């Protein structure tokens, strides 16, 4: 325990516990994971909030993310610069949102960001096509992709602008029975 305590001060841990859905132990574990991604870059001592960021390439190789077709988008969505470089804060943030305890509304917001490939705050057809191709490893024919995207937009689009705004998305996703159980990563 002794050496664990030096990673964060108690205040930091408390603040992290207030800001995330993690327990103290999990935060320390997260730091461990973060540290082991790049042991030479990430300091063990976070008491003075060192500034260090890990690039996307390192993070998407975590076993939790490695198989995820949206791994790049996930990391990019949570990075402040949009390029996928994550500081520890953002790293914790990411897993907090993806944790089991995060509420549906919060998850919906980030899910929207993840699926919004071109970062325009709308899910347009392009985004859907990309999503679909990632989901199916491009096994569907272009016609099928077209059909599915059109149907999806038709189903969820409330305001008729042929793209999904967040309101549309939220309306759709909050009713999805599987969303909560699938949109989570255990770490």
């Amino acid at each position, binding site marked *: 325990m002794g050496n664990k305590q030096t990673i964060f001060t108690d205040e930091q841990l408390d603040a992290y516990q207030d800001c995330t859905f993690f327990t103290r132990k999990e935060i320390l574990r997260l730091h461990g994971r973060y540290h082991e991604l790049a042991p030479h870059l990430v300091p063990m001592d976070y008491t003075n909030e060192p500034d260090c960021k890990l*690039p996307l390439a390192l993070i998407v190789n975590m076993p939790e993310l490695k198989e995820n077709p949206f791994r790049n988008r996930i990391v990019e969505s949570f990075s402040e610069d949009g390029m996928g470089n994550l500081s520890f804060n953002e790293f914790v943030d990411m897993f907090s949102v*993806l944790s089991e305890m995060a509420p549906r509304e919060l998850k919906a917001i980030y899910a929207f960001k993840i699926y919004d490939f071109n970062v325009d705050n709308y899910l347009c057809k392009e985004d859907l096509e990309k999503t679909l191709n990632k989901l199916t490893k491009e096994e569907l024919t272009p016609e099928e992709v077209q059909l599915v995207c059109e149907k999806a937009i038709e189903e969820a689009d409330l305001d008729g602008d042929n793209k999904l705004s967040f309101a549309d998305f939220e309306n759709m996703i909050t009713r999805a029975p*599987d969303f909560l159980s699938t949109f989570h990563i255990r770490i």
Partner: protein
Amino acid sequence: MPRKSDAAKMDEVGIEIDGEVSDSDDGVAQRRNNRRQAAGRGGAKGRGRGKKPASDDEDEADEEEDEAPRGRRGANKKKPAKKRGDDDDDDSEDEAPKRKRGGAANKKKGGKAQDSDEEDSDAPKGKKGRGGKGGKKGEKEEEETKGKKGDAKGKDKGKDKDDDKDKKKKKKKDDSSSDSSSNSDEEEESMSEGEMARLMEEVEEKKKLIANIRNKPWRMKRRLTHLKEAQAFVDKFEGALGKGKGRKWYAYKVMMTKKWIKFQRDFENFRTACIPWERKIKEVESHFGSSVASYFIFLRWMYGMNLVLFGFTFGLVVIPEVLMGLPYGSIPRKTVPREEQDTAQDYSVLMDFNGYCKYSVLFYGFYNNERTIGLLKFRLPLSYLMVGIGTFGYSLMLVIRTMAKNADVGGGDGEEGEFTFAWKMFTSWDYLIGNAETADNKYASITTSFKESIVDEQENQKDENIHLRRFLRVLANFLITCSLGGSGYLIYFVVKRSQEFATRDDLSWYEKNELEIIMSLLGLVCPPLFETIAELEDYHPRIGLKWQLGRIFALFLGNLYTFLFALFDEVNTKLEEEQAIKNASIYAMKEYYANYSRLMNDSEATPPPMDPADVIRGPCWETAVGIEFVKLTVSDIQVSYLTILIGDFARAVIVRFLNYCWCWDLEAGFPSYGEFDISGNVLGLVFNQGMIWMGAFYAPGLVGINVLRLLSSMYYQCWAVMATNVPHERVFKASKSNNFYMGLLLLVLFLSLLPVVYTIMTLPPSFDCGPFSGKSKMFDVVMETIDLDLPAFMGTLFSYAANPGLIIPAVLLMVLAIYYLNSVSEAYKNSNMELKKKMQMARDEEKNRRNNTDSTNQVMKDLEDLLPNRSLAPPPEPEKPPEPEPKPTKTKPGAAGKGVDLQKDVALASPNPNARGPVSRAPGPRGQGPGPRPGPGPGPGRGRGRGPPPR
């Protein structure tokens, strides 16, 4: 707003600070002097204040005077700015001026804070203010413009002016209370009731923010700052609430709530740390999907429940008997009979739970019927009965509570068909998958499901298909019913035969164990058969799993009940036998005494008691039943473990290693690796639990055996599934609530409750073994306790309560209540449907209206906020666009969070060369300090470090 007044004000603020720090800051003194002259009146005032920094109230008043042209409004507006600076920091570079000003204003406080050693949270702000001061001194002109901007902003944002006024007051109050008691009178005056209430409200608000901050879609950094500020705010003002006595009480309450929250958090941490196998299950889940994991979660749940049952049984029955009861060999029921003693230690006998096992604490017969045992006067028979009933009560309660909780979480399967494609697209990927193989399967299954939906969409279901499918489903059900009937008959036949065998002695091993063998075989053969037949039906695997579970359940149920009936037959014959033996044993006893007196020729002498091994004893049907159950459980364990070992492990080894020298591809072709059999395992678990429930009353040790089984099973199966199984071909998610499992469990619980309660209530206990021997019914022990241990009126009370005249109305009442609740839930369901319909209509309407929903709500703003590079920026302002960030890499501190950094830079990038900002800044990532940057001269507008490019 008149520009001039602004400028004047700015000066004033700047100088105030100067005045304050003058003692410590000699380097700037001269310049300050110059400025003082320039600033004129304001400067004079500033100096005056500098001399007596403590009189804060006066300060405020002066300020107000000063701002006469602007009136109070102006003053208020200034506060908003300040306030925003530290509490609502949508912190961004555009707010820098405000920040500066706020910092300056805060500086006062900061200085004081240093004086009076209060409020460490304020200190950084004060320091920041000091940093900002330099800038102010440097470019007055810029200051002016900025000041105006800040004011404008203040106007924009200071909507809740009243609030801000409040805050001002609070600040004032806080300050004065912290450092000068002389002001307290004034101060008290200023805290009217309404303000108190508002302050309270605000504190509550902050507290709410603290509680909910994790739900806000903000960047972590922003969250952390907000949290810190909110906490500081709460800390600061919570104590200030209430006066005199009330104040102390309030502070105490606050402290206690804090402690309580801390305790809760620690407890929560502790609790999560106590949940075992979290990582193991997670590993399985990531390889095999949630459906397989649901089995292990169920297993873990089961283990928890059995642990509690184990605690009850051992703590209240077994251990008292061991510690305080008579030892082995003291009385007949605790001794192996003479004729069995030779073989009592043989392995085969022990494995059948005969011999020493049978006369041990594991079984019913061992317990003595003494009313109390030991020094503590522990009422063992009563405790035995209570634990037996309590086991059922606890299990029932737990299962039902879990089911209710699950149902709460589940919330209905949602209306299919509304968002088929959208849901598939956005929720079909299971983010838990972390294994390449599983991921491949998932990709495949998603593709398939999309294709299925496309086909559905295109063809809208062909008619002939549906007929064919219906036909196939009927056929499948027919076949399965046939095989169920067949297996039922087989069991019936075998049971009959075994009853016949029971009368004979010359039995082969097979004939002895025929019943168990047949039942195990059925359990082995039927499930795969059902699975094969079920393929005709072509259900979704999740629905298919439920059907499969239901069918195997029916099969096992048949087995179970046949087994039970056979057992009852046996019990009945034993009961008849017992009657005869009872007489015989009495006779034998008399004969023994008669013989003794005849041999000794001394009718007076009391004969030594008969050796307990020689006493003739009854068949003790309870122990026989207990042994049956224990045997069944153990053989069940053996079979299931062997199945895993052979069916999965051996198969995997063969497939893996023979593949090198085989004519076809074993891995991809015929035998392949096994899949994890969810339905079989779940049902195995459920039925095993049924055995435990039924048997626990007659064999208290069974609960212990079961705990061991579950424990080993957890590790063994986790290993087996990871080592030898492959993920399902169609990876499917478990339904959210595993209420189906729970439902099965409940059914089994109920079914196992029946026979036990029946035996307790109707059958007479054996006359010479067990805690209830000598009584005509087992529950007589309760009556006895009521009669002997409770005051007399309790007895009459109970007799009234047991009166049919009372019971029948009670039952009636319950039926009525059930009826009422049922109709209420029906009504709710209807209104639910109605609402759903309305929602659907509203949705259609909205769709038709085709108007854009404007993005004014908070969530949308937050969402926009989260766009890269703007995370910390408030709604953009033309003059100060977000900083174009150098492409950030993981490299150096400079590339940290933009927003906060920038704003700090702004505050710090003063031309003041002796800036001590760097030292005093709040810890945290920061850009290059002012050092490396060439400090631009005090030229107007140049001082802002990485000032925004003019647009």
